[in-house]
């Protein structure tokens, strides 16, 4: 049975190109083909499930962030959204960025927000009217922009061109700390140093503003 499967698969690989090619060939070259093949199938399904969970929770968290009455809930939902987005990064093989997302966004920035929300008087904020009176107009304008974005994503100028649903790829580059570090300290050294100046200016600005 497994030999037959192998033959069919190798025939397919010869005849038609498709994105998962490398994975299957690597599986075929190993000894226990059937198990490996099955594992790789399961892996892709798991990927899709994880993507659906992460993206749904991220969008839900974003919606709750914007609509929550109490800013503290808003901050917590925003932290949840950032964690889900970090999961999406991990799915896309950007490990370093995923960890930095958790450390910087869900850690540092969210703590800063939470600190300021608690520092200010929350009760007074929560009882006020939350939305602008012109909110429906803004909603319509934002919906128009959303429609434009979706048209850009799904519009196909020709039969081959455009970002259709069929554009897929197997990522071969892993965003590990080593790879990112090598690129950052060789090719992007000047922007890195400029970023440090930017952070210094932000520190000075924050201290000056807070001390007034």
């Amino acid at each position: 049975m497994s030999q037959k499967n192998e033959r069919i698969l190798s025939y397919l690989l010869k005849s038609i190109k498709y994105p998962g090619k490398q994975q299957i060939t690597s599986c075929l070259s190993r000894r226990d083909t059937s198990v490996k093949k099955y594992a790789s199938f399961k892996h892709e399904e798991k990927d899709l499930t994880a993507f659906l969970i992460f993206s749904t929770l991220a969008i839900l968290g974003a919606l709750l962030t914007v609509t929550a009455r109490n800013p503290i809930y808003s901050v917590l939902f925003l932290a949840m959204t950032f964690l889900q987005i970090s999961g999406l990064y991990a799915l896309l093989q950007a490990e370093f960025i995923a960890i930095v997302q958790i450390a910087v966004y869900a850690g540092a920035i969210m703590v800063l927000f939470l600190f300021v929300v608690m520092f200010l008087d929350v009760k007074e904020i929560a009882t006020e009217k939350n939305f602008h009176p012109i909110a429906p107009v803004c909603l319509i304008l934002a919906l128009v922009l959303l429609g434009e974005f979706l048209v850009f994503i799904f519009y196909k100028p020709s039969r081959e061109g455009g970002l259709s649903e069929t554009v897929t790829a197997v990522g071969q580059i892993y965003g590990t700390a080593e790879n990112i570090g090598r690129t950052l300290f060789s090719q992007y050294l000047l922007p890195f140093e400029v970023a440090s100046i930017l952070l210094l200016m932000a520190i000075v600005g924050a201290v000056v503003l807070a001390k007034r």
Partner: protein
Amino acid sequence: MPYILCFTVNRFMSPIPLSYYLVVSTLIFFIGMLGVLTRRNVLIILMSIELMLNAANINFIVFSYYLNSLRGQIFVFFVMTVAAAEAAVGLAVIVYLFRNKNTVNDDEFSLMRW
């Protein structure tokens, strides 16, 4: 027969399409923009800006994955730096405004309006 088999294998084996991620990031950007436009609380406006930055970051990472290039991830690194600086300064400004006006409602901050 081989074609059908290939099609099914293709559907199962192919990774998540690019457009799925783009739709997710578009929706998050849309929600963030809605927050900036409609909310009155300055803190929540700042959080919505962070949401929009994150949506842009998702796009960078997705294209870096699909183009097999590390540049998108480097750019996300810098965007995170800028976002951290922006959050720190923005929150300092909000604290300063709250001390002067005793509110975080953005209708009250009309000092520079013509």
